């Protein structure tokens, strides 16, 4: 064994349980520039006092770091002082404790790469944990956002089931705050598990930025003919037209391998090719005044669309969604509350929810923090919700000018007169005290105003 070690030229030495050097390889002697016999039996204990003898100081430098007995292994960069004419370079040393009780410490010099591997593994595990937590968060939000017993909720879930069962382009249409991104993410997880996805912020894109954002996917698709990927585009209908054209070109290039999940407003318009710059009003040059979806992207999205209705059209789902949000937060240990009082539910139902599902989720988050006990009351809800009071239903009709008000009143009187005379205009004019010609002129004027 010692002959093999010597033949390798690697610095190897051994330290007894009493802290004395009992073996040094020829590689060690060569590294230190001393004879082996000069160091054997010298003390090699970290922190122990040493004499002024240079060889004692060399032996002490070869000692393992403290705590080796507990850990069993340790790494250390060892740089002994030189005693010969040539300086001694530092080397990486792995110390290993072998045996129990009166054990032996073996030191092996060389280059070890396992520290960076540990770092890579640690990074990969950390990223994986965070991705999993992020995906669980979206899954939970999507579950709550699509909960409910209303016909609107049932139909939405049916369409989402279809979307989740097939890998195809999908357009999600809904107002801001509808939870569309969480829903789309969940559809992606269910329909294409393990497939890469890039999220694109549509309104912020130009063609260069879009290319840069899509590079990870494009590289993956280019590297393998069987690779697949998904682009989730937020605010597709607010994406500049040129970027939409670029996206459409990418979809054509990669055919079914690149999938589009698009999140849009409730009723986007369809855009065709952009106008020439000279055709745009001068104030709009350099801007993107037209909002909508390019017709080539409409072609891709026409296969399957999911409409996410605003919360005010799913009133009977609000108690269930709020209770689900409270349950989820209680299970995550975010508060003491387990349920909502009936008064709190009434207030939630009455509120019109301009911010939709995300506003409801935020309100439940605040209520969980505020409520000290098991039930969330009205007083724990955000001020905007607990103070909301609907009007009594009678609203004024706003008229822009006196002339418009007079025209509206005149039209109303004429309509009533004609109705009272069963369509007889001559009789209606007589009852109103005006000529038939004047009555007909007023009718024609009212028709043209409409």
């Amino acid at each position, binding site marked *: 064994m010692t002959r093999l070690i010597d033949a390798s030229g690697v610095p190897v030495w051994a330290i007894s349980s009493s802290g004395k050097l009992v073996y040094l390889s020829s590689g060690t002697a060569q590294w230190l520039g001393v004879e082996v016999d000069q160091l054997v039996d010298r003390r090699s204990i970290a922190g122990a006092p040493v004499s002024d003898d240079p060889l004692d100081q060399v032996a002490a430098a070869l000692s393992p770091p403290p705590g080796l007995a507990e850990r069993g292994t340790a790494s250390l960069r060892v740089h002994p002082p030189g005693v010969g004419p040539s300086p001694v370079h530092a080397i990486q040393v792995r110390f290993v404790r072998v045996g129990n009780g009166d054990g032996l410490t073996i030191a092996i010099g060389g280059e070890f790469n396992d520290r960076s591997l540990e770092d890579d593994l640690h990074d990969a595990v950390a990223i994986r944990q965070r991705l999993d937590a992020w995906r669980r968060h979206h899954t939970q939000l999507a579950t709550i956002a699509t909960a409910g017993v209303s016909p609107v909720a049932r139909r939405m879930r049916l369409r989402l089931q279809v979307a989740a069962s097939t890998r195809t382009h999908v357009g999600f249409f809904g107002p801001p705050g509808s939870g569309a991104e969480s829903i789309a993410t969940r559809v992606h997880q269910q329909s294409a598990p393990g497939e890469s996805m890039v999220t694109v912020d549509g309104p912020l894109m130009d063609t260069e930025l879009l290319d840069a954002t899509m590079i990870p996917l494009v590289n993956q698709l280019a590297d393998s003919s069987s690779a697949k990927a998904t682009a989730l585009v937020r605010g597709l209908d607010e994406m500049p037209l040129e970027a939409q054209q670029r996206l459409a070109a990418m979809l054509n290039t990669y055919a079914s391998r690149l999938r589009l999940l698009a999140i849009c407003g409730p009723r986007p318009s369809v855009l065709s090719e952009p106008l020439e710059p000279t055709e745009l009003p001068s104030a709009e040059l350099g801007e993107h005044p037209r909002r909508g979806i390019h017709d080539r992207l409409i072609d891709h999205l026409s296969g399957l669309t999911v409409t996410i209705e605003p919360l005010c059209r799913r009133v009977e789902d609000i108690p269930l969604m709020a209770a689900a949000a409270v349950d989820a937060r209680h299970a995550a240990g975010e508060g003491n509350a387990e349920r909502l009082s009936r008064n709190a539910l*009434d207030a939630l139902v*009455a509120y019109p929810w301009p911010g939709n599902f995300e506003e409801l989720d935020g309100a439940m988050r605040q209520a969980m923090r505020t409520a000290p006990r098991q039930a969330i009351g009205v007083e724990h809800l955000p001020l905007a919700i607990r103070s909301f*009071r609907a009007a009594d239903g009678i609203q*004024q*009709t706003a008229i*822009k000018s006196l002339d*418009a008000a007079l025209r*509206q009143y005149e039209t109303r009187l004429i309509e009533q007169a004609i109705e009272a005379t069963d369509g007889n205009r001559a009789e209606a004019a007589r009852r109103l005290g005006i000529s038939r010609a004047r009555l007909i002129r007023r009718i024609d004027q009212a028709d043209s105003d409409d």
Partner: protein
Amino acid sequence: MIELPPERANIRPWLVVESGDRWIHASRRFAPELMPPNLIAQVRHFEPPLTVALSGQQRAVILWEVRRAHFDKAIDGLAATRLRSPSTLLLAATRGLADRHHLALSEFGVATFVSHPEHLPRLAPMIGAYFSDSRE
């Protein structure tokens, strides 16, 4: 900007009978959405006599909170309302009533029952049909 009051002919009473304010708030929130486009709901608490509350309108909605503790009083009120104005649409807001109570209320002309404010939007087709032009 000039603002004009709406046409009185387009206003329909939506009256609420209750001891608190739960259903008046719910009615103010949802009644405007339940009315046909050309009509406006005037939501207020119901104070007898009924003829004054209806202000000459033939068609009106009355949302009556019925509790077990005062069931007989509610029945008396509903019966009197039915007699005076057979064409009003009677809705009952109930909680914790047995089937026999619901049957009795139906016999006195209650068209449907609601338990919570979120049930009001479901009544849109009924309200729309009640106020449709052909029936007014």
